């Protein structure tokens, strides 16, 4: 784990010393190193490594730089690369400091064809939406006009978020008997979805309210974080069927 994380971080550090095409290739190499680790883990565990919070952090560390690279190449902007690499390193550090007790067990409810698409689109959504929050901070702090990029990141993020939510509903019907039961994780997923839908409506309606929009994104990412990790620490979590940490 540490070897691969260091390898990826090394590639990214080298990428920022390089220029143009070499930078893109080095950055992609860092992503490839992490992807190799995730695939190895998948093989060793004999199940998709997507069950625990630590495993979702690993996917985030893989997918956020991937998304950043696509955005950076597509729109020829650099700052997403910096944020993508920095956030990935933070999440890898958390996993190194608090290693999961990686075990091979996968409870029967999670053994479903829905498992992989549900988690992957959610982590993709989280990658875009956290990127939008970082862009908003950039706007508030340094006054750079990152908001158009944030708008598009939210739009794509909400598309993936909707897919994750709906895949989850279809899966829940197969596994638990009902598509929606207001389990705490479901409730916070609904709140996350609602707050980003509200953001889209606000932005289209009031395009000139930039500071408000940026602050809105900062609050929204707090709701997202509650859905992702925070919900495990809430009083309501006692009865959740969505806690898969050990």
């Amino acid at each position, binding site marked *: 784990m540490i070897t691969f994380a260091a390898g990826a971080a090394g590639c990214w550090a080298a990428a920022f010393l390089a220029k143009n095409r070499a930078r893109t290739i080095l950055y992609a190499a860092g992503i490839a190193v992490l992807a190799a680790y995730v695939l190895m883990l998948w093989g060793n565990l004999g199940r998709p490594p997507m069950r625990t919070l630590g495993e979702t952090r690993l996917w985030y560390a893989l997918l956020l730089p991937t998304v950043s690279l696509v955005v950076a190449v597509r729109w*020829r902007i650099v700052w997403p690369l910096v944020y993508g690499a920095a956030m990935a390193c933070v999440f890898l550090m958390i996993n190194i400091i608090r290693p999961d007790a990686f075990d091979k067990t996968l409870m029967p409810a999670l053994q479903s064809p829905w498992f992989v698409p549900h988690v992957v689109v959610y982590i993709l959504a989280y990658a875009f939406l956290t990127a939008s929050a970082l862009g908003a901070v950039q706007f508030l702090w340094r006054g750079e*006009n*990152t908001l158009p990029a944030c708008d598009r990141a939210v*739009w794509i993020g909400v598309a993936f978020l*909707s897919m994750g939510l*709906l895949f989850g509903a279809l899966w829940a019907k197969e596994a638990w008997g009902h598509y929606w039961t207001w389990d705490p994780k479901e409730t916070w997923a609904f709140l996350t979805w609602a707050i980003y*839908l509200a953001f889209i409506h*606000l932005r289209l309606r009031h395009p000139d*309210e*930039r500071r408000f929009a940026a602050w809105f994104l900062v609050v929204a990412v707090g709701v997202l974080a509650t859905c992702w990790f925070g919900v495990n620490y809430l009083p309501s979590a006692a009865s959740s069927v969505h806690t898969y940490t050990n």
Partner: protein
Amino acid sequence: MNRPPHGSADNLSADPVQTRERPCSFESIPPTSAPLRLCGFSPGYGSSVAMVAGVVLAGFAVEFARGGGALTPPSWPYNAVFLGLFAGWIGLLSGLPGRLTAWLGSVPFALATMLMLGILGGIGGTVPQDAGLVPSWAQRLGFHHVFTGMPFAVALLLFLTNLGMAACRKVGQLGPKAWFFSLNHIGIWIAVASAMFGAGDVIRARMILVEGQAEAMVVDAKGRQGYLPFGLFLQRFYVEHYGDESGRPGVAKRFAADVTILPKDRQFADVTVEVNKPLRRDGWTLYLTNYELSETGQTDQCLIEAVRDPWLPGVYAGIYLMLAAAVAMLFKCPFAVPTAAGREGEL
């Protein structure tokens, strides 16, 4: 689009980025340059928040007066009649001109209902949804069953009113060009309305199967008994475990029930029911949910949840519309491409 310049600190007028160019034709929300004021001075927001908050507070008052009991949702055929009247009322209202109907279908009203659903959802997502874990004053307000209580129900009705009116008006204005807007908004409307109005017809009951015995009786959460239109004979129930290092059985890897379906007038059929692989038959779906280990570690009985939800096709129709919209979102975006935004260097 002419906008009077206004002097807020965040008005980056020297900015080269053309955020106001909107290349897509399906844009659903006309932008306004009227400044947004949180205290409700911006047109439409104050009245919307007041209206929604007033209705939800009235919902809490009713909840309190009733002693915090959960609502019993109406069942067939009353729910279908209510839904028909509700949908007809929305259709009728949206056809009428005037400021009131425009207000009910407006973006400020939408944001006010979403804010209220968000607040109620925040309560329901934080307070345990279990009467035993909640203080009595919070129980009186129904905080332990937010999603089956009166305030949430009225907030949802306001939300559906707003969403339905917005969708009707948009389709009326644009016709087939409103397809993208329609997918999302009509999808949500159909799914939420089917789930809400169909709630009274959902049956979730349990049945215990014992190896070597037949059973057709189910019992719901309130202890009411009923019978499935077919019986189930449990031939064999088995559990596979993950082994741990010492060779002792670990957590369950898979559990399954081999059953024979005993219909009244047809051939018997042998099937296996397991988690994520429910059995569908005659409008019922049967889920293997759990089992109990006896003292000897033997398991010869299991728990089945029998679910009947006649409104499910409506919910699924809405879900598939929303999924189509989510895929379309990846290809169509109302926000302008960020050209020079935040560029620090060339790739």
